[in-house]
């Protein structure tokens, strides 16, 4: 996850207010003050919105929800595009060639792909999605990986050629992002074969 490594813990009053703002009207109990912590971090592509993380430490491992918001209104990042597009439509999105890669990294970190999670690979040496791979697989990825290339098309959309990790495979994708932050993948090319032996015989099963 890019650019959100500077988390700031919210004080007790702000934590209480946040838990109250995001509680459900239904019968779910996710967070209580005694066992939960709230923190926030800046995002380079939003003017007045931060990313917030509420964590319940009574669960093992801890249980977290992420939101984007302005300290009063919060959009729960639920795995769909809806909360991000709602936040974008509030007028707080400020995309540039300098932050659009951060934007799509954030986007795919919080939006599920149709058949599995999608990870933007900007730096293959430092990406949690690749932690489970062995040295040979990492060497292949480092050999195939190319830095992202960011351009603009005639309609004012950003066009980013970048490596993605999807379905246990490295893919070179062309990702189009319009001024409203809508994301469209216009092309994909597989760079390496799947890292898994899907027969299950890859380990002493």
């Amino acid at each position, binding site marked *: 996850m890019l650019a959100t490594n500077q988390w700031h813990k919210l004080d007790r009053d702000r934590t209480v207010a946040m838990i109250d703002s995001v509680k*459900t*009207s*239904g019968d*779910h*109990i*996710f967070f*209580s003050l005694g*066992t939960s912590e709230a923190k926030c971090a800046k995002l380079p592509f939003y003017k007045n919105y931060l990313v917030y993380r509420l964590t*319940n430490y*009574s*669960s*093992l*491992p*801890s*249980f*977290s*929800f*992420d939101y984007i918001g302005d300290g009063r209104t919060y959009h*729960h*990042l*639920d*795995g*769909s*595009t*809806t909360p991000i*597009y*709602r936040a974008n*439509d509030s007028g707080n999105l400020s995309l540039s060639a300098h932050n659009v890669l951060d934007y799509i990294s954030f*986007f795919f970190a*919080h*939006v*599920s*792909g*149709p*058949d*599995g999670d*999608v990870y933007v690979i900007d730096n293959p040496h430092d990406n949690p999605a690749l*932690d*489970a791979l062995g040295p040979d697989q990492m060497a292949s990825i480092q050999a195939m990986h190319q830095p992202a290339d960011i351009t603009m098309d005639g309609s004012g959309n950003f066009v980013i050629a970048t490596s993605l990790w*999807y*379905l*246990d495979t490295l*893919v070179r*994708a062309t990702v189009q992002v319009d001024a*409203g932050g*809508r*994301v*469209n*993948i*216009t*092309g*994909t090319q*597989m760079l390496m074969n799947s890292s*898994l032996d*899907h027969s*299950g015989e*890859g*380990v*002493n*099963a």
Partner: protein
Amino acid sequence: MTQDSPFSNLQGTFGQSTPKPNVGGVDYNHPQEEKVRQAIMAALSQTQTGQDLLEMASQNRVAIRVIKAKGASGFVPEAKTVYIGLAPELSTPSPEIILDTAAYLRQAQLQFLGQKNPDDSMSSVDQAIAFDTKILDSLTVMCKITSESYEKGHTEFVDAMLRMGHGELYESFKRDGPGPQMKELFYKLYIEVN
């Protein structure tokens, strides 16, 4: 790319361009909760370990709830509920989600057996021991389910364990069982590196 490529589903616009308005606060309910919950329970019931956990949940009135979230899942003791997060557009639980559910049901079971989660009343050493013991226990349950499923000819949990980074631990479980070798490897892989 051809249409039968595994990546063809990835191409195209993500989501509806005009999101639905936000009405009535945060709605965490998954639109297909019951379908997903039934699929998770059906998958778990295919193994003896999974069956035992479901029976424990039934006896202790532990609920399994599916909510809209990405990657946020766990047993919340205050709610006596295992929450499983899944994006609202998805209605099929992955093998990883099924294994996670088993691990969280095991966390609930350990709670009922009196094994408290680490808290501030414990010394830092006792907190670390309590944390490590419970996590290793959950990973062992995941290994058991994977092994029992593999013995019935299914490989999806083996692949899931690899994707989750637990391949070496699973190999140790298969080779030596849930004993000291697995514990030693757990500390080497998950604790000492952090």
